[in-house]
């Protein structure tokens, strides 16, 4: 083990002792890379500098480091086939559902939630809908709640939107507000439908009466036993019968489909119908 690896372990130990955040769930090489990236973006001289500042009680740095270690990777309409099926196959089931609720667990900075919201708006089902995005990372939740993104994200959004098979008259312009020079946001109706909050999926309570749960690229970090526990104690109790669970591409629930009454809609796509 080289010096920086040892220092990373000490940094994680200090974080665990001082603010009870335990990152043992994550693989050490990934944490080492994230700590390295944090040191570079913060302009710190070295691992020693970071460790000493944490030991001396720099709370701001400690908070920022925890946020940097829990950040998730996301973008608008990521994995377009999932959003296509959400639009074409899932939403029509809820065309006449009052109080439609979608819960995005591990929503990071909100791009996924707004992507769903745009499609719900295109189906004219937004008026009675509520989209709830939750994440462990408070900084990301602040970004998601503000709903304001830099203009380079608009290119990503446009490209994702164009890649979907939507009715010819679908207009992205009606869904966003790009009046600012360097940022854009979403129309009032979308912003009012999306709600964000911090939530720890391993500890906090389930929600009720949710029609669609999107839990993508979060379960994959858990052991198979822990995954089953989260499905059993958090996801299924939150879903209405006939609801849907959407997981990430590396999160195949098919082996447990009988156990949990989940039926996969299409081969190779992790969208499941809950037929309890």
């Amino acid at each position, binding site marked *: 083990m*080289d010096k920086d690896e040892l220092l990373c372990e000490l940094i994680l130990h200090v974080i665990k002792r001082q603010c009870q955040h335990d990152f043992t769930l994550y*693989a050490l*090489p*990934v944490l*080492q*890379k*994230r700590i390295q*990236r944090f040191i570079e973006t913060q302009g710190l001289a070295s691992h020693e500098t970071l460790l000493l500042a944490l030991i001396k009680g720099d709370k701001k740095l400690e908070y920022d480091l925890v946020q940097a270690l829990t950040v*998730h*990777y996301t973008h608008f309409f990521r*994995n377009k086939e999932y959003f296509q099926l959400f639009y074409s196959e899932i939403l029509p089931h809820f065309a006449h559902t009052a109080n439609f609720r979608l819960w995005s667990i591990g929503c990071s900075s909100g791009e996924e939630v707004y992507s769903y919201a745009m499609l719900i708006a295109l189906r004219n089902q937004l008026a009675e809908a509520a989209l709830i995005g939750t994440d462990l990372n408070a900084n990301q939740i602040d970004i998601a709640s503000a709903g304001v993104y830099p203009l380079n994200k608009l290119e990503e959004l446009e490209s994702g939107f164009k890649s979907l098979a939507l009715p010819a008259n679908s207009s992205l312009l009606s869904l966003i507000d790009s009046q600012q020079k360097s940022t854009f946001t979403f129309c009032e109706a979308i912003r009012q439908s999306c709600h964000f909050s911090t939530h720890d999926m391993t500890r906090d309570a389930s929600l009720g009466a949710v029609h669609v749960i999107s839990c993508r*690229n979060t379960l*994959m*970090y858990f052991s*198979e036993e822990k995954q089953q526990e989260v499905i059993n104690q958090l996801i299924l109790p939150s879903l209405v019968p006939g609801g849907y669970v959407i997981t*990430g*591409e*590396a*999160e*195949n629930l098919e082996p447990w489909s009988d156990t949990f009454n989940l039926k996969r809609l299409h081969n190779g796509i992790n969208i499941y119908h809950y037929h309890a």
Partner: protein
Amino acid sequence: MYKRILIGGSAGSFEQVSQLLSAESLYHCPPIIFIMHLSENYDAKNLCNAFQSLVHIKCKLVQNHDWIESDTLYIADGRYHVLLDNDGQRFRLYDDEPFHYAKPSIDLLFESCCGSEAKSTLAIVLSGANSDGSTGLKKLFDAGAHCCIASPNNTPHSAMPTSALHTVPNAEVLPDEVDSQWLVKLLACDKRSTEHLHHTSKSKLSNSVHASASDIKPSNTLVGGHQ
């Protein structure tokens, strides 16, 4: 004895890997894990199918939590970083931004294999236009892995092997013209040396059995006495 072969490459490495693994006689080998930088939108099933038509071992896409199996070439897609855990026997995928512009990160795969399992690991860095793989290769080398680098003289994109060679100057450089027999010969050699080790240890074991037998002679005598 090699228990896994890790190969990292980027631009230009597809042809090199095809060449390395194309021997008909390569049908029995440790698991081979090939990480190539890919776009997130590229469907790696196509790459997997392409390899399946070129090599004589099974080709599979890397899946989270899968145990790695011998006689199999694993291909990673561009959507996740790939690590090994359980002492290098099982895949673990990570959803994160690219590290140093690279995804899946070759460094991360290599670094995840630096425990006691490093000594039974063969790691190879091939063609590519960035420096991914160098840091991981250095850590693997220091942990006792057999580390090889494509010759920068005859590589479509030499930045990656050049960087690796700069970071790990004592790694083995592959011949300028890598043919399909290079890996076959290396594995045969590895097998022979392992058999030799087995043979030696068997002899030692048999000596020690003899020694034990003589040690317990008094008991035998005692047993004989009962007779």
